[in-house]
């Protein structure tokens, strides 16, 4: 039972934390040539 609870908490933590952790590249700026 305790194992199930621990697995549930780990999964819940990943769902909450992962989307925040993914936002790592905050901004991208390019200079391009040949645009018409």
């Amino acid at each position, binding site marked *: 039972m305790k194992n199930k609870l621990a697995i549930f908490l780990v999964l819940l933590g990943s769902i909450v934390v992962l989307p925040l952790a993914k*936002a790592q*590249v*905050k901004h*991208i*700026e*390019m*200079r*391009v040539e040949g645009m018409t």
Partner: protein
Amino acid sequence: MKQHLGRQSGVQNVEVSLIDGKVEITPKEDGQIDPAELLKATYDSGVTAAEMDITARGKISKEANGELALQLATNRSYVLADTELAKRLEPLAGTATSVTVRGQLYKKPPGAKRSKPPSSFKLVVLEVQKKE
């Protein structure tokens, strides 16, 4: 090109300035964005990327060969070019400190007219914006 880039994974918004050829890309907050894919998409849309700057947050790590890298949480890392600014980040290697840096990921080789973007990049740190 705007539509082409806008379809790429992790892209929220693309702003293109025809006057100076500047393209600003805002990544999605919860998405993954791959600058290498954006360079490829730019090439595929028929224009040439002259340079690409990124602002990214990650942790500093030391590769097996001694090179410093900016490690992103998405299992993506960029090796830092060996510059004075990058050397200043060395004490943070392996620590829990996150840094936000602005750097140049790609610059078209001088004289090259139109060439496929490389598959690996070195990040030239231009500015360390935040350490936390």
